[in-house]
């Protein structure tokens, strides 16, 4: 098998996985001279071959002068070819079940048959084995599937605007599977990018002298350029008519695996995207998993301005609903036990439920956990957890019988904290929450029905009975911990939002008193870091406790409905006022008065007196300080569902200190603050986003 040919076939990446079989060598016009069989003499042959390749490539891809390989050296291109063979191999190894993606039935059956014979069925992952094959198999909510389907249908045939779709959601919520299933059902071709492995190590051993050179310049560079080429060429050429079937011309490109370099610096990626929008034609789907901490890949790779600029649509998936999850787990378990390699007892329902619960909506993780639980060696482990969970589920079932209204919520309700320990034994996940959800959990403050057998114990004396609350569903400290925010910051978020969740002013009085306490506790900087944990506990529990309208589990009458959450104004306000004070002091330093006098007396009166000021900076500063917007009350930013707040206190303080040093160009600062002001005022009330409760 010649390297040259492999390389060329790799241009049709995704079609010809069988490049190691000889039946797909179809590229006749190739010059025979450039074929090499031994690795040792690569260095001799590769130079002419690469040159020819260049010519061949550039003549065929006239439109892409920037993107063809004129820049790459001959070594690169050879390496490139080897790595692309490697890539295809890796694809074939890594994702065997994905071969069906081009809708070529004959082909795919052939593949699967070969795999069956090769691989021991016992070692394959069930999550791969039972990957969804039709829409019905998907665990994703029907509306989401419909959304994606409509998008694909809407864009598949339109040629003019190359559409880009961005799918986001937690891991294991079926983003990729949805796309695969849909493309298959819509009879589209799915081209998928997967990162090439790094250079073939054999290649490097052969010539030690060039080793460093290759590592330095070769890999990262070539990965990006390969990605670029893939994107820009993948939609240009049709599948060759190899198997005598009708060629499917409708194509979808999917990128799930981003070249690593893009995480360091996303600008080349953005350039590629812009270029794609100019020249490309097929719908392009990106899949990015959410992360709740650190830098979000979504924000890094797809910043908001780029999304709007390129009109990237964003569909975000929710965690898989508990009912769907159990259904699928049951199906997988029963199928496996009847057809699988070894017999086992299907785990009973509560084990499946607990697996589903502990996976937190990650279907892949759940199936993996199930497989683990059903292995020969660990089957007793499941039994142990069954015993533990049984007591709980029994309790739960008795309660759920009684409450007719909230019956279907029983799954989610049992996700409470006392269970987590037990679930860890069969592969529970250490989860983290988005800030939005974490706040929601505190503010909506859902409560459980108290277990009635010990109701006498929990009863308070008569005169204190107004302080009785039903047990909480969540542990507030745990929620805060999962949100990865410092206590101070979480408190600020709570403070910004709690008022809207209250119905009467008396409750707010107690809640605001708690908030005031929290600030009072962190007065001393020496003990602040220690007290933060207590402070956030007071804040969360205070807010939850004070809300008497949500003291009972069954107050459906006072349903709050969906409320948008906002980012705290405090930090922004603080910053602006600091800036204003700074510039006022600097500009009016000739007045020789203390800042308070300046800001509350002098400047306001100067504006009333109409003194002619000669400094434009002074004038704008005065306007800034004296203009009150009476009609627009709030200037707040909305908190997005998936916003991750990175701004910790320390960084914020540092920044403020930086700003506190006297600005040299004060005019600039003022205009900045003014533009800030305008921006924030422009944030108008967006239409409400509807969040489906993921507990179905």
């Amino acid at each position, binding site marked *: 098998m010649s390297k040259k040919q492999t390389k060329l076939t790799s241009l049709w990446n995704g079609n010809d996985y069988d490049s190691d079989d000889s039946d797909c060598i179809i590229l006749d016009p190739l010059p025979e001279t450039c074929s090499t069989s031994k690795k040792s003499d690569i260095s001799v042959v590769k130079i002419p071959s690469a040159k020819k390749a260049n010519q061949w490539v550039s003549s065929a891809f006239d439109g892409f002068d920037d993107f063809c390989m004129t820049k790459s050296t001959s070594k690169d291109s050879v390496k490139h070819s080897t790595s692309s063979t490697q890539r295809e191999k890796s694809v074939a190894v890594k994702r065997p079940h994905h071969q069906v993606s081009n809708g070529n039935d004959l082909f795919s059956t052939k593949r699967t048959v070969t795999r069956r014979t090769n691989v021991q069925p016992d070692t394959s992952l069930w999550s791969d084995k039972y990957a969804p094959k039709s829409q019905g198999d998907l665990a994703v909510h029907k509306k989401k599937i419909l959304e994606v389907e409509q998008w694909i249908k809407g864009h598949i045939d339109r040629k003019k605007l190359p559409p880009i779709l961005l799918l986001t959601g937690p891991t294991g919520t079926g983003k990729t599977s949805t796309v695969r299933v849909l493309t298959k059902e819509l009879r589209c071709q799915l081209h998928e990018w997967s990162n090439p492995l790094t250079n073939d190590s054999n290649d490097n051993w052969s010539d030690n002298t060039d080793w460093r050179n290759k590592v330095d310049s070769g890999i990262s560079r070539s990965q990006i350029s390969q990605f670029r080429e893939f994107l820009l060429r993948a939609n240009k050429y049709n599948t060759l008519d190899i198997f005598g079937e009708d060629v499917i011309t409708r194509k979808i490109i999917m990128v799930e695996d981003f070249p690593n370099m893009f995480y360091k610096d996303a600008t080349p990626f953005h350039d590629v995207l812009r270029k794609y929008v100019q020249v490309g034609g097929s719908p392009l789907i990106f899949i990015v998993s959410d992360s709740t901490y650190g830098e979000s890949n979504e924000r890094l790779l797809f910043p908001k301005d780029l999304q709007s600029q390129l009109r990237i649509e964003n569909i975000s998936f929710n965690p898989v609903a508990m009912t769907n999850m159990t259904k699928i787990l049951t199906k997988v378990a029963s199928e496996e036990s009847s057809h699988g390699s070894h017999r086992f007892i299907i785990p009973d329902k509560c084990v499946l439920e607990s697996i589903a619960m502990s996976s937190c909506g990650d279907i892949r993780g759940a199936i993996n956990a199930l497989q683990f639980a059903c292995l020969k060696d660990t089957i007793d482990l499941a039994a142990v957890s069954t015993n533990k969970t049984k007591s709980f589920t029994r309790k739960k079932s008795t309660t759920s019988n009684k409450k007719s209204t909230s019956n279907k919520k029983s799954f989610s309700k049992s996700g409470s904290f006392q269970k987590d320990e037990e679930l860890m034994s069969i592969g529970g996940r250490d989860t983290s929450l988005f800030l939005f959800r974490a706040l929601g959990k505190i503010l909506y403050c859902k409560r459980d029905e108290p277990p009635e057998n010990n109701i006498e114990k929990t009863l308070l004396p008569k005169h204190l009975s107004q302080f009785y609350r039903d047990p909480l569903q969540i542990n507030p400290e745990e929620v805060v911990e999962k949100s990865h925010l410092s206590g101070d910051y979480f408190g*600020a978020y709570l*403070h910004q939002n709690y*008022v*809207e969740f209250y*119905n*009467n*002013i*008396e409750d*707010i*009085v107690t809640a*605001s*008193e708690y*908030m*005031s306490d*929290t*600030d*009072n506790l*962190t*007065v001393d900087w020496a003990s602040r870091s220690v007290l933060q944990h207590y402070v956030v506990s007071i804040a969360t529990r205070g807010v939850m406790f004070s809300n008497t309208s949500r003291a009972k589990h069954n107050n459906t009458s006072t349903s709050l409905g969906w409320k948008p959450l906002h980012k705290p*104004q*405090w930090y922004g*306000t603080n910053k602006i*006022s600091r800036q*204003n*004070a700074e510039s*006022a*002091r600097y500009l009016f*330093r000739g007045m*020789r*008065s*203390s*800042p*308070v*006098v300046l*800001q*509350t*007396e*002098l400047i*306001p*009166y*100067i*504006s*009333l*007196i*109409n*003194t*002619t000021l000669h400094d434009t900076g002074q004038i704008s500063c005065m306007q800034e*300080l*004296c*203009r*009150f*917007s*009476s009609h627009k*009350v*709030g*200037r*707040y930013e909305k908190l997005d569902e998936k916003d991750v707040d990175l701004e910790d206190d320390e960084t914020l303080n540092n920044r403020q*200190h930086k700003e506190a*040093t*006297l600005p040299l160009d004060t005019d600039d600062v003022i205009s900045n603050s003014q533009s800030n002001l305008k921006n924030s005022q422009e944030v108008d009330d967006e239409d409400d986003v509807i969040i489906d409760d993921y507990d179905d």
Partner: protein
Amino acid sequence: MSLWVDKYRPTSLNKLDYHKSQAAHLKNLVAGGDFPHLLVYGPSGSGKKTRIMCILKELYGPGVEKLRIEQHHFTTPSKKKLEISTISSNYHIEVNPSDVGNNDRVVIQELIKTVAQVNQLETSTQREFKVVLLTEVDRLTKDAQHALRRTMEKYMSTCRLILCCNSTSKVIPAIKSRCLGIRVAAPSIDEVCQVLQMVCKKEGLNLPGELARRIAEKSNRNLRKALLMCEACRVQQYPFSADQTVSEPDWEVYLKETAHMIVQQQSPKRLFEVRGRLYELLTHCIPADVIMKGLLQNLINSCDGELKTEVIQTAAYYEHRLQLGQKSIYHLEAFVAKFMAIYKRFLEEGIADIF
């Protein structure tokens, strides 16, 4: 065109308009040759700064009026760069150390050291000490105040300090005992009227006595404010009429509206709106304690006698926390919420009494 406040500021101890006996005492003090550290205190707008400048002029002659603005750079032990602007003449230097926030200690020590290490050039014709004028001493951190105490003793031979503050309650006793305290009381209403009349006369305007009185009352015996108000009235309408409105700064109007909103309705929704307005005030650099005070003054007017103690107690409670804490909005909002609850209860009881 400079403001009347600056234009008609008296420049020597002889020309001061009120507290004349005190001025005579100060004159004697300066004439006596040696001179202790001074701590000048009194409410805002009572003429502390004016008196200090008069003293300086008495000490050094007209040379102190040649002022220049300078930028000084300091580096904290933690390698942080500080920058502070000072106003100085050949004989004195004026600085507001609270401009640099928590690092005021460094500024005080370094600045006084540099000033005090250089002796007066002509000791024969001039005093042998320079003067460092520190404003807003009550806003200094405790740390800085202790540093100040040490420096005061150390450089006594070459440098005198004049400290200026509104209230001595936040000045540590050690400093108080090392200084000669000079209290500058706010001028009485009559004195304010007198000054206003005098200024208007010099401007060639005819100020009706009634208007002068109203301005004086509205200014809360703050002479600076009174003069600014008077000038604003002049811009608004001339010739003056006795019943013309005395305009207020925008933020006060805004605060008044806010207080009105609180009294109008007591609900979570309203509280949220009020919070927005509080933020708005804070962005316009109105200090939180001023907001609290203003709110209380406006709210108390619409309160019944029996409520007043409770409301004021609440306000005091939260004002104290506000002074200690960092997030002033928490405390402001807690106060507003509490007032709403008190007021609502009061209204409900009132309705219950009727039936």
